[in-house]
């Protein structure tokens, strides 16, 4: 168990929040998620993103969003949140044993 780090519950002293970074590669394209970084405030997040994710001229515009401010859908039945519906196997055709001599079903 010792290899699994504890997820951040209380931030340690001086720890900076996580930001998700979105970069518009060039005009005409959407902002695309490129990764995350740590920053103490929004301004720092933008400057840090510039240095980390666009140091080879990869972008014309950056969004930085606090990771905790992102509302995300659960990834369908794979998520434990939706696990209960995963047991409704009767919704799936393979649940039904069909004798092999019944054609085209």
């Amino acid at each position, binding site marked *: 168990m*010792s*290899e*699994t*780090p*504890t*997820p*951040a519950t209380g*931030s*340690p*002293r*001086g*720890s*900076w929040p*996580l930001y998700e970074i979105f970069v518009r590669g060039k005009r005409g394209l959407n902002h695309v998620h490129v*990764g*995350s*970084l*740590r920053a*103490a*405030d*929004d*301004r*720092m*997040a*933008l400057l840090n993103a510039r240095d*980390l994710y666009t*140091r*080879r001229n990869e972008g014309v*515009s*950056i*969004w*930085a*969003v606090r990771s905790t401010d992102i509302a*995300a859908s*659960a*990834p369908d*039945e*794979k*998520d*434990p949140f939706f*696990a*209960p519906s*995963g*047991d*409704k*196997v*009767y919704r799936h055709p393979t649940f039904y044993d069909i004798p092999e001599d019944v054609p085209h079903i």
Partner: protein
Amino acid sequence: MTETEAPGADALQEYFDATIARDQRVEPRDWMPEGYRKTLIRQIAQHAHSEIIGMQPEGDWITRAPSLRRKSILFAKVQDEAGHGLYLYSAAETLGADRDDLTERLITGRQKYSSIFNYPTPTFADVGVIGWFVDGAAICNQVPLCRSSYGPYARAMVRVCKEESFHQRQGYELLMTMMSGTEGQRAMVQDAVDRWWWPSLMMFGPPDDNSPNSERSMAWKIKRHSNDELRQRFVDMTVPQAEHLGVTLPDPELRWNEERGRYDFGTPDYAELMRVISGDGPCNAERVTRRRTAHEDGAWVREAAAAHAAKHTARHTGPDRTEAAA
């Protein structure tokens, strides 16, 4: 399976297994076996730590690089390594790891980094040979990881690999230039090659018959090729480059095997690898101490920024998001 069983466990495992079998990517919020998550966190963290510790052997040469062009290149390269560390910590954080916690594990010696960075860099030729061998070996290791089953790791590796190709080329180009220089420079290059060749082969890890975690990682498609296969690829790739450069690789057993269509080569000293991994390499203590000192010396800056941000948030009522939209 019957519908009366507890929901989940089996079905989730099946779904996960099917995702892996179809060669699709596992994404952060997907269910995954705890062992898969732990293995990934350990591997990605070690990889991130390697990038960060790997800044030290070369970083010392930035202030002494013998031309302004080389100075710029090396400065940019070492900066890239910090960037690669951040891409990787970012991938680890999608698995629920926390960067502060991972850093703590590094500086207290509880998590490892690549053994190669525990060797010293006494001459400027080391900068070139690190680029050629170490970054070359890293590319062999990392290009397959661009297809790793875990999405954020694979995507981070795509970025890293793109940038590593610059690293390898700059190293080789430096060595070509030095080989065309003075006799002293050629001797420096050969000396560095002699020192780095075997440690570079060890970067691929223990031999397959003694690599307990490899099989599971390959089944999970976290890892795509065995240690020995990657080591062989590196040798096959490097030998012609050495010939072109005019240096001798320090292995009397190295020769072309017509039948296999590959090079035969000697066995690295795996006892040395184990010693270095377990903390007894030439520079282990120095590397970790330096990272710990930097982290501790910087605490007041990180705390100040956090304190300022807290006051700033308190002073402004309501969220201020306007600055974030560039």
